[in-house]
């Protein structure tokens, strides 16, 4: 007959500790590693928009980012942005330039696509649609979620690259062409992968699809 042995108090504590450690390790590895876990996905069928013609939907790893475009402020820039979206040229475009809690940048069609990422030339690619004249507004304030066309150090060099601000940046007022503003999905953008101390990101996150909103 086997005699049952009662665990001592210290053995119980050790056992409980090991179980807790295993649970912690499991959750850390499978749950907390998922950066999208606590981010709202933005179900399009449940959202209503005042100007549905000017709504663009950017799908990234963690869900949909909804952007309202401002053709009244920058008509040419928004027209170009819509063409790039409708021709699906932003699909696969990487967020190769990320300044933590400040801005994220994507849209290099030529060298910044996830399927053709060229770090030696990134940021200098063109869309093939030509350069745009800057449409600057001294009244437009770049707040959290503002979307603007990127350019070189010279004005009138906008093409396809765009940035989204993650905080208010007053110094950008009158410096960059505004395109629109993120109205849903800022939390999603904050999960976009950052560089390790650098502004350029290795193995960056990218845009799955970028489409104009379809409404009935």
């Amino acid at each position: 007959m086997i005699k049952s042995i009662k665990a001592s108090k210290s053995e119980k504590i050790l056992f409980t500790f090991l179980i807790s450690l295993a649970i912690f390790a499991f959750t850390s590895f499978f749950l907390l590693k998922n950066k999208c876990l606590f981010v709202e996905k933005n179900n399009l069928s449940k959202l209503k928009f005042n100007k549905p013609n000017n709504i663009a939907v950017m799908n990234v790893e963690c869900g949909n980012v909804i952007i309202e475009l401002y053709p009244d402020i920058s008509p040419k820039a928004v027209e170009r942005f819509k063409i790039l979206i409708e021709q699906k040229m932003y699909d696969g475009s990487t967020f190769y330039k990320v300044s933590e809690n400040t801005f994220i940048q994507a849209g290099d069609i030529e060298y910044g696509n996830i399927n053709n990422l060229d770090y030696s030339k990134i940021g200098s690619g063109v869309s093939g649609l030509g350069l745009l004249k800057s449409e600057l507004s001294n009244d437009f304030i770049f707040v959290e979620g503002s979307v603007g066309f990127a350019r070189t150090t010279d004005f009138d060099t906008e093409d396809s690259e765009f940035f989204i601000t993650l905080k208010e940046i007053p110094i950008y007022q009158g410096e960059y062409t505004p395109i629109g503003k993120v109205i849903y999905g800022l939390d999603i953008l904050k999960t976009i992968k950052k560089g390790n101390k650098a502004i350029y990101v290795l193995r960056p996150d990218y845009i799955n699809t970028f489409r104009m909103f379809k409404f009935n």
Partner: protein
Amino acid sequence: MKILILFILIFHISHVNAGEIYNLIKIPNLEIYKLKNDNNIRYLSAKGNFKIGVNKNVTCDKVNINNLNSKFPLIEKNLNLYNSNFLNKIKLKYIVFCENLFISEINTGGIPDNKNRTLILDINFNQKYFERMIHHEIFHMIQNSYRKVFDENEFSSFNEDSFNYAECSTCSDRLNLDLYENTDGFLTEYSKSIPSEDMAEIFSFLMVNQNIINEKIKNDKILSNKVNFIKYSLAKIDKNIL
């Protein structure tokens, strides 16, 4: 090769504060000092030391904020002499304040950069010449934007035939900024270095103390021609500056 370029790119950028201001004017470690001004100029200050330029040959140290606060009213007063339309034309929007500014290990008061619409100023520059230095550097921005208007050959032709400028502004020992008693065609020793410095010296005196110039040109035909050239050329850009 691409991996090497990527490594270099990341290594270099990882050591700078690559925030929103860096993204705009390519100078790291800056913060806003004063943003809203009547002539739309924006003042930035170095919150940390920085190195920029080819081979990082431009270096400057962070500002002591009390030092800057004490000198800012004088700087602002001088920059308020320029209207926003004129500043747009000469591509000047950002003034960067720092201390101990060096270019290729040569101490300097200011460095103009038309491409980034920026003028870097060393707030510790000799106070005796500080106001003039501001306008002197601004003239370089004017000339950079209007090379044909401020033609150096035409300007040089006012000198006596026997006079020759140096090859470059720092490759001569003509560096003194004090006003000559007897001008003889040149306001300062530094005016004799190269034509653009000569023009910049005249412009700086015109902005700070026109009376001195008016007095000097009475008996100096060469200087008088040069001053008229600067005034006439400047009027082509903006009639209200002088």
